[in-house]
């Protein structure tokens, strides 16, 4: 993929600045409609999912006490994997986005929630909600593009190091939660110099991650196995497997969000003085959906509706399906590419890109098209 500004066929060439602002207004109107009806149903939904998830987790862990017996191992591991996926995707991710803050329930709130993940919620909120969602797909600003370890754009200079990126990506998938923790810590950057290494904020975050990983590992690899006595090793293996399954699943879903074919990336300069309409447009072009059944949407935490999620990250995720109908109509009205497809296709597309970009390529169109997206000359805002 080439950044939008250097593409030969510009997908938004037909839009005027007025069109873009009109799109923004229409999306705001869609958002308002949901806000107006948000309430009881959404609160009941998230409470129900939490209840189901907790019951499933307790049940699976109980079954795993007898994981010496192969059927119990299988059932328990499957149940625990599903419980962990639900916990991370439909519950943790969405609550940490503040989607359920409107309930004013201190137990289900973005400021208090902690999840079954190596990375502490607060650090993830910074790198995800604050950086990724604001700078979606802006090369050099949004580190989610390639997580800082991969080449994701034809314009990025190739280096032999990238030959191994399919391997990195595979390892990252297996141990995704640790990859995310390292990523949230900006390990690559912060370990570089002595000064950065001794930065008190970094040290504090590092300690928090260490503590979190310690507790998580103790739970999955010591305490629960110990409780199952003679099944110790089996339970340990079951927990490890469940973690890996959860990791591979979330990695796949997340890769489908911004990597598949047809998704645009943006030049760093393109967000200077960006308007609300232009911000919305960037989210529209920079995200991709996964099509599928209702169960599929729940298991992806509704990140299968990545486009809708990026437009409205703070709306309850279970609303994305109904919002998607209107959003899609808007894409059609303005003749914009709504990138979606079934999971295998999207995963394959994302992997193909990872592999393709591991090899050098001919440099695409040299000069960026300065008119995309249209913007006025404004001084670069100071960002924290």
């Amino acid at each position: 993929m080439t950044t939008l500004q250097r593409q030969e066929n510009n997908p938004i060439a037909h839009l005027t600045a007025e069109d873009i602002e009109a799109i923004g207004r229409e999306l705001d109107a869609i958002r308002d409609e949901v806000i107006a009806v948000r309430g009881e149903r959404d609160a009941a939904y998230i409470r129900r999912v939490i209840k189901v998830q907790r019951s499933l987790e307790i049940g699976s862990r109980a079954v795993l006490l007898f994981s010496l017996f192969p059927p119990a191992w299988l059932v328990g591991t499957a149940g625990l994997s599903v419980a962990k996926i639900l916990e991370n995707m439909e519950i943790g991710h969405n609550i940490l986005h503040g989607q359920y803050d409107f309930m004013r329930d201190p137990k289900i709130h973005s400021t208090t929630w902690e999840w079954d993940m190596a990375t502490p919620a607060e650090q993830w909120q910074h790198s995800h909600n604050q950086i990724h969602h604001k700078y979606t797909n802006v090369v050099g600003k949004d580190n989610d593009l390639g997580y800082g370890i991969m080449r994701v754009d034809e314009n990025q200079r190739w280096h032999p190091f990238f030959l191994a990126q399919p391997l990195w990506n595979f390892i990252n998938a297996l141990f995704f939660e640790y990859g995310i923790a390292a990523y949230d810590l900006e390990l690559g950057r912060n370990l570089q110099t002595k000064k950065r290494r001794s930065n008190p904020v970094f040290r504090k975050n590092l300690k928090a991650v260490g503590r979190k990983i310690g507790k998580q590992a103790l739970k999955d690899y010591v305490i629960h196995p110990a409780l199952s006595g003679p099944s110790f090793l089996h339970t340990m293996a079951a927990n490890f497997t469940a973690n890996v399954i959860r990791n591979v699943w979330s990695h796949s879903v997340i890769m489908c969000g911004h990597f598949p074919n047809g998704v645009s990336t943006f030049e760093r300069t393109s967000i200077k003085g960006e308007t609300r309409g232009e911000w919305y447009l960037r989210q529209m072009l920079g995200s991709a959906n996964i099509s599928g059944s209702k169960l599929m949407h729940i298991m992806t935490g509704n990140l299968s509706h990545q486009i809708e999620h990026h437009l409205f990250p703070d709306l309850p995720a279970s609303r994305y399906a109904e919002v998607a109908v209107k959003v899609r109509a808007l894409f059609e009205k303005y003749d914009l590419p709504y990138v979606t497809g079934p999971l295998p296709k999207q995963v394959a597309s994302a992997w193909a890109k990872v592999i393709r970009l591991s090899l050098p390529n001919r440099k695409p169109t040299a000069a960026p098209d300065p008119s995309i997206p249209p913007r006025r000359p404004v001084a670069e805002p100071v960002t924290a």
Partner: protein
Amino acid sequence: MTSPGRPSRLGEVPVTQTLRNGAWRVVELITTPVVPSDYLDVIAPLRNPNVLRARVEAVHRETANAVTLELRPGRGWRPHQPGQYVRLGVDVDGIRLWRSYSVSSPAGQPSGRISVTVNAVRDGLVSSYLLANARRGMIVNLDLPAGDFVLPAERPAKSLFVTAGSGITPVMGILRSAVHELPDVVVVHSARTSEDVVFGADLRALAAAGRITLIERHTGADGRLKPAELAELVPDLFERETWACGPGEMLDALADHWSEAGAAERLHVERFRPTVLVAGDGGSVTFERSGARVEAPAGVSILDAGEAAGQLMPSGCRMGICFKCVLPMREGIVRDMRDGQITTAVEGDNVLIQTCVSAAAGPCHLDA
């Protein structure tokens, strides 16, 4: 939710407690990253020692407009003194709203239950919700009892209670608990009509038994009671220790009357705060901890206004998506600049608002 840190000074505590703490630690590790009570909540919501809740055990209709809820408070409850109130947190259309209600049951019930009487007020979200929806088995959130509208340990020889409307509820709690300790009680109560008198039957029964002197005033027919008229109804007015509860204007008038007579210290009042706030444009924002105060016009976010005034504020995306900028609003009213939604907070609430997309719609007090 991370588990609260527990002090671990081994050696200073008895062995059993050390063992218990140790066992508890293991249980916490089993449930990490949440705490054990998060799992227990699923089956036993009243057992949670950190989140006080209550179960509605019975609902009695008092008048067309008022219901009494009999509540069984969960773990962590501390008994109330008659005259005190509790805050109930009720989920109305998915949003937890807190309101204060006086406890109307006598103190120290052997069953451990308390009751509150909810009078539906106009535009009152919570009271009308409870009137229509309160059912046996419903779980509500609860705060510990509070308020100093209580009798002194040494009971007064002569007492007077002046109440109007639902102002009778804390007084009913006091009478039910302590009327036998009060030798001479006068109750002057106003309501629109005879049927509107909450606890009408109880009050009349107390009067018939000679326990109290009841003076009922029906404002629908007789008009509002003026403080000057009180002297006629109760000749030894200022000799009595007086408790008053009712609408703000009534209490103001009484307070003036008592202080003019130089008897201000004999009058105890309980005010129900008005919860209906009206949205305007802009307002003054007070940051309570730093003491900073700024006029924030409509259309300017509280974040921008605060920073312009030199207030240190947390922020992130500055466009309403990261929730990094949330601050607790103790009291006030704000408008979401994206969709116009109004959010209000009354004293005791700590509603978290996103300062980057909220504009003041009236005076606001933030905990920052």
